[in-house]
């Protein structure tokens, strides 16, 4: 995930990098995803939410639907 000043900057970058067309998140959405994925990482028992089954319902709660967001 990369950071940009605006969606227009992200789309301009996409136009110069074939195969990197993707999805745009607000910084708040990105922080929510980063927190969901990363808040327990220091724990000894950590497993990434993609491997626990917790990922799908979380991204749906953010309104992130569609094949792009599915872990499989």
């Amino acid at each position, binding site marked *: 995930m990369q950071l940009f000043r605006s969606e227009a*900057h992200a789309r301009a970058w996409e136009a110069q990098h074939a195969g990197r067309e*993707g999805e745009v998140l607000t910084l708040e959405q990105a922080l929510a*995803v*980063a927190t969901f994925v*990363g808040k327990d990482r220091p724990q000894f028992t950590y*497993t990434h939410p993609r491997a626990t089954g917790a990922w799908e319902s979380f991204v749906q709660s953010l309104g992130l639907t569609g094949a792009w967001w599915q872990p499989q």
Partner: protein
Amino acid sequence: MVAVTHTARQVRKVILDAFVHTGQAPTVRGIMAALGLSRAAVRATFREIAAIDTFWVEPETEQIHLLAPFANTKTPYIVTVEGVRKWYAVCGLAALGIWAFFPGQTVQVAAACRDCGEAIRLQCQDGQLTARSPAPLIAHLGVPVARWRDDVPGA
């Protein structure tokens, strides 16, 4: 749920502790010494760690490139904690989550817009975004979630 051995979790902890304290990943030899494991045993745990976290080792050299959120090479996401600058985050997502390893401390991220190069500054503490510059910022995910494991740098 993925089954992971206690040894693999110990190795993961050794790697993360090294990143937190030094900014760099340990070598395989260092992990062997820390835990009294053989090279083969350490390498076997790498496959387990990759099943539960974002982890990338160069197969030929055994060099650890990253264990999220930490990168073992320079990236565009430079992390400073309480004024000490010695960490690199794997990507923007990792940069936004690296605070979890530094509870109660101020974490600053210096990056740049990948399009125009304008400086981007973020500041977090305990999961709260306390400063950002410029104010309008967005994140871009260039790889579908299902392919994150295969294309970590691109994601």
